[in-house]
């Protein structure tokens, strides 16, 4: 796996987490529709899981420098997926939405930093 491929993958994680944060923010403010939140959070979760699978299957040269970043990206994907799961399970819970929004924003920033470091 080349650094630019890994960076693209991490950027997908960053974008998905940021979108999840936007969605969670609307849950927190009771400004969305539960069916939409549930279906869209599921969709975003699937995107993240697919990206994690791709990262897991990609071969990264342990000497090449991207292997540690790849592991970090897979862990990030897990965390983003879990945070999206919170609003998918409780799309009407404003407190849960607020917590997920904070978590997803932080994860998006973390992904951005990781991509920039490559």
């Amino acid at each position: 796996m080349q650094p630019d491929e890994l960076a693209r993958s991490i950027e997908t994680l960053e974008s998905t987490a940021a979108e999840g944060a936007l969605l969670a923010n609307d849950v927190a403010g009771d400004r969305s529709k539960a069916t939409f939140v549930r279906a869209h959070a599921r969709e975003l979760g699937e995107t993240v899981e697919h990206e994690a699978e791709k990262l897991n299957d990609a071969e990264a040269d342990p000497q090449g420098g991207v292997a540690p970043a790849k592991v970090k990206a897979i862990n990030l994907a897990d965390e983003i997926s879990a945070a999206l799961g919170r609003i998918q399970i409780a799309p009407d819970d404003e407190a849960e939405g607020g917590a997920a929004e904070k978590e997803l924003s932080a994860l998006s920033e973390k992904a951005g930093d990781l991509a920039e470091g490559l």
Partner: protein
Amino acid sequence: MIAAIGGFVDIGDLVFNAQAGASVGTPALWAVPVGVLGIMIFAEMSGRIVAVSNKPNFVLVKERYSTRLSTFTLVASLVLTVLTLGAELGGLGFVLNYLFDVSVNFFVLVALFAIAAAIYFLPFGGLERVFGYMGLALLVYIVASIKLDPDWGEIGRGFVPERHGAAVYWYFVVGLIAAALMPYEIYFYSSGAVEEGWDERDMKVNKANAFVGFGLGGLISVGILVAAAQVLKPAGISPDSIGTVALVAEVPYGETGLILAFIGIIFAVGGATIDTAFSAAYNLAQHQGWKWGKRFRLLDEPRFTLSLAGFLLVGFAIAQSGVDPISLTEYAVIFSIPVLPLTYLPILLVGNDPNVMGKHVNGPVNRLLGWAYFGLICLLAVAAPVLFVWTNGGG
């Protein structure tokens, strides 16, 4: 007039405008009026040709091209139109699932039945009115783009083309222009004019349809791009789903904005589904010389009716295959560009022909704009596949 909106703002426009707004922002805005002016000019020309000669676009293709070239044009347009039809049906499945959360595949089936029922039960004018008027709910994007308090100076500068080194910028510029000029739109427009029995008395209706209708569609496209640039770009979000396009309206207006966006998307994309299905059936029937049209009872011309049903079923199979409608849309838009010159050339040739058009032949301005746009289309036909590969599909 309203009909043009439903046919203009389809899933390709929704996706490309939102992606362009999120990716390159308002500097790509100028591409929208360039595309809209192109479709206005050629739609008006094709409507005028129908009013004078009663010949829809594929009849012109058949008359002006060799058998081999007209067959190639038919096959290429059918492949791209049916791919678009699959993307539209898939998009409908996703939006309905956002509203009821059962399963996307189930709602693709529901959408197929709803579209088939609308085609069977509604008259041609009724189809246009229902889908066109309800599609106006997409105006929420214009209102949203204003409510989001954009930098108006930046928006103004976005309408002026600028020198840009990034290939991804040019990819979206090409995509935005192409999304406005999708071949099925012009095939449907000219065949629809035959369905409605236009003659020389309908020149004003034709102009209103082409300029006001497509103009309103263009404004909605601008609204989507500007709103996406305000909501998605600062957050670094790349819209890979139709849900993201809906989310853009939710941010300023909450659930009301979301519901209006869904209504608008359902009817605009539903209208485009009908347009693409009819367009494919019209092209095949006109190429084969069959009797065609909704103005006849469906069972009076079984070959046309069967091809209409067949194309809907192929589109349904594509949508059910699990292929991502957004990716499918991007492929359909980008790969329709090399076919654009074949679609638009016969309109220009006939519009310029005084033997056919008589006193309604293209004037100097129409002639100049027509050739200028044809040159642009040829340039895009070369640039689009290159940019697609170079930018990895704008990614």
